[in-house]
């Protein structure tokens, strides 16, 4: 069904003129009127912090919400490797078009062409902005900005600050936000969690939040609401996301009428530290930048695998000729720098064939010995020192001497709230930016592009496009938080909280969350098939019933209660889990991170079905226990020639 409700609002004209023309045509709000308008921003990662700061600078009254004790804790801070930008500083023939093309191709032709082009177009501005804020990017001896290469690209366009690029970019955006907080344009609410969206006459007009320190339920009104709460990868329980990262704000918007797009596109990152046992709470990422100098391999002989598992030999004792550098073997043109989805599946393929190098059989080697020989340990330490240190602290193995062990893990979600070209959702006045929306990465995100997208949306897109909506709201008075819609929404939240607290069953939240995670990883993870997905939907329903009959949440609602926070989030993860499985079942093709075993080429690569699935799948909530309605936004490629992804030659 092609739906007319989904107006992508992509402007007319040639691709490279769309954004410029659009900016000329959209409305702006005068400074005097901006002072009268209020905007709520939920989330303070790269998207939320940069948006709140920029909107504050423009003169809007901004309220920014953060679930941690400070905006600086947002999980953007953990991004290690870098940020892409089409600067062409290396004279290696990079360009806006090439970054655009790499991103479209990396996303396996499942993203919106005009959005991706705009992303590439504003990317150079991001670097300039961050430099001006005092972000200490890596420099060459001559004082110029340094670059490294990243997966899915054949040019060096990734800017970085050691292995802490996300941290440095977030500190830049956080500093800009602090400046606006000090000036009074932005009011910040820490340790507040959005619990619902308030809609009045069809427009997003505010939120209900819980003060996590006191348990108080609070009301906040505005003329527009921006969701910048990141992704929903923690539905899998074990992921590289932070423990508090959650998909609840997205699910609340979905339940209030915002369409959820492409939920099945979840990225599985190839280089994470393998699972060590049952007591593990989360997985740690080892930056993709390591694949610049690290070579991925498993032994060629099964007897070497046996010896490794029994710890009879060390990996460094295996002769060069007995090593299978399977990425270099299978993908000569890109080698170790193939996109994440390709590298993850290749690791799974080798481990499924019995070549996994640790006791669980779920690990491959990432080896730096060649690079250390070529460049010396000092250079490697300078590039990746903090990552090597982190690896050693966690595993007790020194990666300068023995190769790292890595395995894929859930890392990022390309799916998210459906937005139009203006980043507005299907609810007027509700916007979604950064990882929380779906628009730019298609079926797979390239490395160093998440930071780029978060900051592009927050600094350079939303501050323009939100004006087009707010220009129509300048006569609208401040939202009345005593409106019936606030009363009703708050009542529903309180009922939900009481219901959860009164179950008083036997299982702690984590126990149930782990059950959901195991189902997701086994049936909705790296390889999916029809039977498995159907089974997952049944099993998730069982876990959901378990939650509502047997969860045990101690304490009350009127205090700092971390178990209650987790329980509320798990309710929404259960909803997301079902949505991911449903979307994956519906998409009977393989593309990017979504791999349906029924749809693969002879050599195990993804096989798309462009005729039937070249569209965005946007799901509309229909109520508890009802199957959501699927809407399709067709993807048309006016500029790029759609082809099969090829990283072999």
């Amino acid at each position, binding site marked *: 069904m092609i739906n007319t409700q989904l107006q992508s609002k992509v402007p007319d004209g040639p691709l490279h003129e769309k954004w410029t023309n659009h900016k000329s045509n959209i409305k702006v709000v005068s400074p005097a009127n901006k002072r009268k308008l209020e905007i709520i921003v939920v989330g303070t990662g790269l998207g939320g912090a940069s948006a709140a700061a*920029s909107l504050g*600078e423009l003169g809007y009254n901004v309220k920014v919400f953060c679930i*941690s*004790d*400070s905006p*600086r*804790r*947002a*999980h953007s*801070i*953990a991004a290690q490797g870098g940020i892409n930008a089409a600067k062409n500083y290396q004279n290696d023939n990079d360009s806006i078009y090439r970054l655009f093309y790499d991103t479209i191709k990396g996303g396996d032709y499942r993203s919106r062409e005009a959005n991706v082009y705009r992303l590439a177009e504003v990317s150079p501005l991001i*670097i*300039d*902005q*961050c*430099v*001006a*804020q*005092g972000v*200490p990017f*890596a*420099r*060459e*001896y001559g*004082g*110029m900005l340094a670059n490294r290469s990243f997966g899915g690209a054949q040019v060096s366009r990734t800017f970085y600050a050691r292995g*802490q690029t996300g941290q*440095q970019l977030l*500190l830049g955006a956080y*500093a*800009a936000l*602090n*400046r606006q*907080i*000090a000036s009074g344009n932005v009011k*910040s609410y820490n340790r507040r969690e959005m619990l619902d969206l308030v809609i009045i006459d069809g427009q997003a007009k505010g939120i209900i939040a819980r003060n996590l*320190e006191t348990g108080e339920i609070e009301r906040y009104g505005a003329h527009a609401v921006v969701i910048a709460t990141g992704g929903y990868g923690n539905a899998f329980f074990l992921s590289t996301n*932070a*423990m*508090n990262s959650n998909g609840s704000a997205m699910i609340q918007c979905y339940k209030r009428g915002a369409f959820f797009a492409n939920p099945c596109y979840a990225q599985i990152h190839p280089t994470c530290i393998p699972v*060590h*046992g049952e*007591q*593990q*709470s*989360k997985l*740690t*990422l080892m930056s993709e930048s390591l694949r610049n100098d690290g070579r991925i391999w498993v032994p060629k002989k099964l007897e070497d695998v046996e010896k490794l598992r029994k710890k009879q030999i060390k990996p460094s004792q295996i002769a060069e000729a007995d090593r299978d550098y399977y990425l270099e073997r299978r993908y000569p043109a890109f080698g170790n720098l193939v996109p994440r989805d390709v590298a993850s599946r290749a690791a799974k393929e080798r481990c499924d064939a019995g070549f996994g190098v640790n006791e669980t059989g779920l690990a491959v080697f990432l080896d730096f010995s060649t690079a250390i020989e070529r460049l010396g340990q000092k250079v490697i330490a300078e590039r990746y020192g903090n990552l090597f*240190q*982190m690896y050693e*602290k*966690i595993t*007790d193995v020194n990666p300068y001497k023995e190769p790292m062990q890595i395995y894929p893990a859930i890392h990022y979600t390309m799916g998210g709230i459906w937005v139009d070209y203006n980043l507005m959702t299907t609810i007027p006045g509700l916007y979604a930016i950064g990882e929380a929306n779906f628009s730019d990465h298609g079926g797979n995100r390239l490395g160093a592009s998440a930071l780029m997208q978060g900051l592009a949306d927050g*600094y350079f897109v939303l501050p323009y496009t939100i004006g087009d909506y707010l220009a129509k709201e300048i006569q609208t008075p401040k939202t009345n938080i005593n409106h019936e819609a606030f009363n009703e929404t708050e009542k529903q939240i309180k009922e939900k909280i009481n219901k959860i607290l009164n179950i008083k069953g036997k299982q*702690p939240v984590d*126990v149930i969350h782990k059950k959901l995670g195991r189902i997701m990883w086994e049936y909705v993870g790296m390889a999916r098939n029809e039977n498995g997905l159907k089974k997952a939907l049944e099993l998730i329903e069982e876990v959901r019933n378990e939650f509502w009959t047997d969860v045990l949440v*101690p*304490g009350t609602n009127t205090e*700092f209660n971390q*178990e209650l926070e987790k329980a509320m989030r798990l309710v929404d993860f259960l909803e997301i889990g079902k949505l991911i499985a449903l979307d994956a079942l519906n998409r009977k093709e393989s593309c990017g991170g979504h791999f349906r075993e029924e749809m693969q080429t002879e050599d195990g690569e993804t096989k798309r079905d462009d005729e039937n699935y070249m569209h965005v799948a946007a799901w509309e909530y229909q109520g508890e226990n009802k199957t959501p309605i699927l809407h399709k936004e067709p993807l048309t490629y006016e500029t790029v020639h759609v082809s099969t992804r090829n990283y072999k030659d």
Partner: protein
Amino acid sequence: MKFKLKIWRQKNAKAKGYFEDFDVDNISPDTSFLEMLDILNNNLISAGKEPVAFDHDCREGICGMCSLYINGRAHGPDEDITTCQLHMRKFKDGDLITVEPWRSAAFPVVKDLVVNRNAFDQILQAGGFVSVNTGGVPDGNTIPISKLDADEAMDASACIGCGACVATCKNGSAMLFVAARVSALAKLPQGKVEAQQRAKAMVAKMDELGFGSCTNTQACQAECPKGISIAHIARLNREFLCAKLKD
């Protein structure tokens, strides 16, 4: 492995706190310290008791959220790491482990091991930024920055704002935290313009919020999980003095 735990309990900021003893068993040496607390909490919940509140988020040592004082040391008995990166293999089987929140007048306890570090945000709001709006800035390569300066700015910028320096300092001083930000920006041409003003404003705010004075004991440097050097305090003092001389 098994451990005896002595953990600080405190209902809220106003309540009186106390130590409570717990036992945990069946802990793998590869388990992280916070995972050990997860296990303890799930045991407590199942037994109908109240779990121990503690702050944590990224669990990979970068968000700065975790904040435990373990056996008398901020972030516990290992070097250059945060609590979330501490693993139980660093302890001996049967050890008694004492766990407390950060102790500082400027960081009031919220509950159990959770403290309020809003004072850090306020210090940065006083001047920890470059006054530049979004847009209208020059190309990133317009001003060359020597690699050494960029590297030193990066060293200082590695601060994660966890508060271990304050918790460790016998005076409860935030000098290392303030110095890291002042120094990071003073090392770069973009931040140099406001460097002296910034130093003055941030130090004034730090004093106002009830942090103690620096007496150069270097304890902060020893316990900083990111190895931030007190050399940055020297640079802060320099910027601060220059600013004062101009007053």
